[in-house]
């Protein structure tokens, strides 16, 4: 006789996958994740605006919420419990160095190292998140294999800088016209230059460039120890079980904390070589949001989608 359900033991999972989405700092609006509507999304193609950061390791969650008891009577006995504070921390290691993983692993402003003597070229209309249309003259200055940053000229703004992904906070105006392109997350690798168009390997994190944007080649990325700016992202961590079940950890507001740190992991067993893989350590502080369901202040959601036919 064929069974129609089975008692499922604890999920077995091989690894954790991380997705991040930018918090709208000006409107103070995080990105929410609804497991009922989006829980079965293709892990290789997350729903917008989530960005796939790939598999991570040493993912650890730590609750720092505190509760205490209200006592009454003689001798005193607990009457009720109250939550004195709420908070949580998340730590993990990114297995790849990318613009975004490096920025998330640094609790400070993250910048693009703009190539020297590389004036910004105006991006023409018709550009998309994966193709940048330039004038023929400007396009001749670019080549496949270059990293580019695409964004507006800086015009003396203060406050949160960068849209839709905020990359800095300025108290005082600067004179650097390239400043927004220094801190933008709209970076990409040029795979091909054809007919005045730069083709990018992946879509720009901020989507199609805004009207008036310019493009500049980038040599690499820089972060600093110190500074007063903290990025803020919504985080989603997914464990996929071998029976098809999924565990989601959704942190609507995460700010990197601590300092930029790396770990060196030996490639081979001890005594079998000296090559080491350098991975980015990241640590985050979870900030509270009001749950739109009932206005309760929370820092994290844990969701579980059971395997098909599993007893619940």
């Amino acid at each position, binding site marked *: *006789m*064929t*069974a*129609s*359900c*089975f*008692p*499922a*033991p*604890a999920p*077995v999972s*091989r690894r954790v996958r991380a997705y991040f989405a930018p918090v709208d700092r000006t409107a103070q609006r995080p990105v929410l994740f609804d497991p009922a509507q989006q829980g079965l999304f293709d892990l290789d193609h997350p729903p917008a605006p989530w960005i796939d950061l790939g598999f991570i390791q040493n993912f650890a969650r730590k609750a720092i919420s505190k509760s205490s008891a209200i006592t009454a009577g003689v001798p005193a006995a607990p009457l009720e419990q109250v939550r004195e504070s709420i908070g949580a921390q998340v730590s993990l290691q990114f297995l790849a160095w990318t613009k975004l993983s490096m920025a998330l692993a640094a609790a400070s402003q993250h910048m693009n190292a703009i190539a020297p003597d590389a004036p910004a070229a105006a991006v023409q209309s018709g550009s998309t998140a994966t193709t940048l249309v330039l004038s023929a003259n400007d396009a001749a200055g670019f080549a496949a294999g270059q990293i580019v940053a695409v964004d507006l000229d800086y015009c003396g703004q203060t406050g949160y800088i960068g849209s839709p992904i905020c990359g800095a906070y300025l108290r005082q105006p600067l004179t650097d016209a390239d400043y927004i392109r220094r801190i933008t997350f709209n970076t990409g690798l040029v795979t091909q230059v054809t007919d005045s168009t730069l083709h990018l390997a992946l879509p720009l994190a901020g989507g199609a460039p805004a009207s008036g944007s310019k493009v500049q080649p980038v040599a690499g990325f820089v972060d600093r120890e110190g500074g007063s700016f903290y990025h803020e992202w919504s985080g989603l961590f997914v464990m996929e079980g*071998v*029976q*098809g079940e999924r565990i989601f950890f959704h942190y609507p507001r995460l700010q990197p904390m601590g300092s930029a740190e790396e770990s060196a992991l030996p490639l081979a067993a001890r005594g079998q070589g000296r090559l080491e893989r350098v991975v980015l350590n990241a640590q985050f502080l979870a900030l509270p949001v009001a749950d739109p369901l009932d206005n309760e202040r929370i820092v994290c959601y844990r969701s579980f989608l059971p*395997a*098909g*036919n599993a*007893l619940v």
Partner: protein
Amino acid sequence: MQNAKDSFYICLRNRLATLNFERTILLRGAVRPGILVEDAEAPFPQLPSDIYIVRWLGHGADIDLASTLLAEECEIIYGTCGCQTYGGLDRGRALTQMDAELLAILQPFSAPKWDYCTQPPTALLTQVFWDEPVFSPAVTQRDRLTRSVKIMVYSYQEEGE
């Protein structure tokens, strides 16, 4: 565990047929994808070349769970002498290709579990799953290069199995 073992083998067989349809073996009068289960065929005086041979080894069970977890150690053996066109001088390349193909067909590391004792086969409720492969060093025997890979294959025992 027989359903899990059958499902694991059929999964690898189907994936291999998709990945490299030219890797075949003529066995008992039929051309089949180049992977077989050693204990389901007549004994070989010498293991055939350029195909994968699945051999089942150890067995274990964790009976303290909501569903009993069964584990079976699987060894996949393969060897090659290279091809006659190149006088066997390509045997290292041929073994590298077999390494890559095996790694490819092992992913993803799970597959639906079926009962192949019924006709047609019956889909069961759980998945058979396995850990990452452990490749052993290549062994040279005259003109033949051989490697074995060990994989732990797991399955939950379902009601009626």
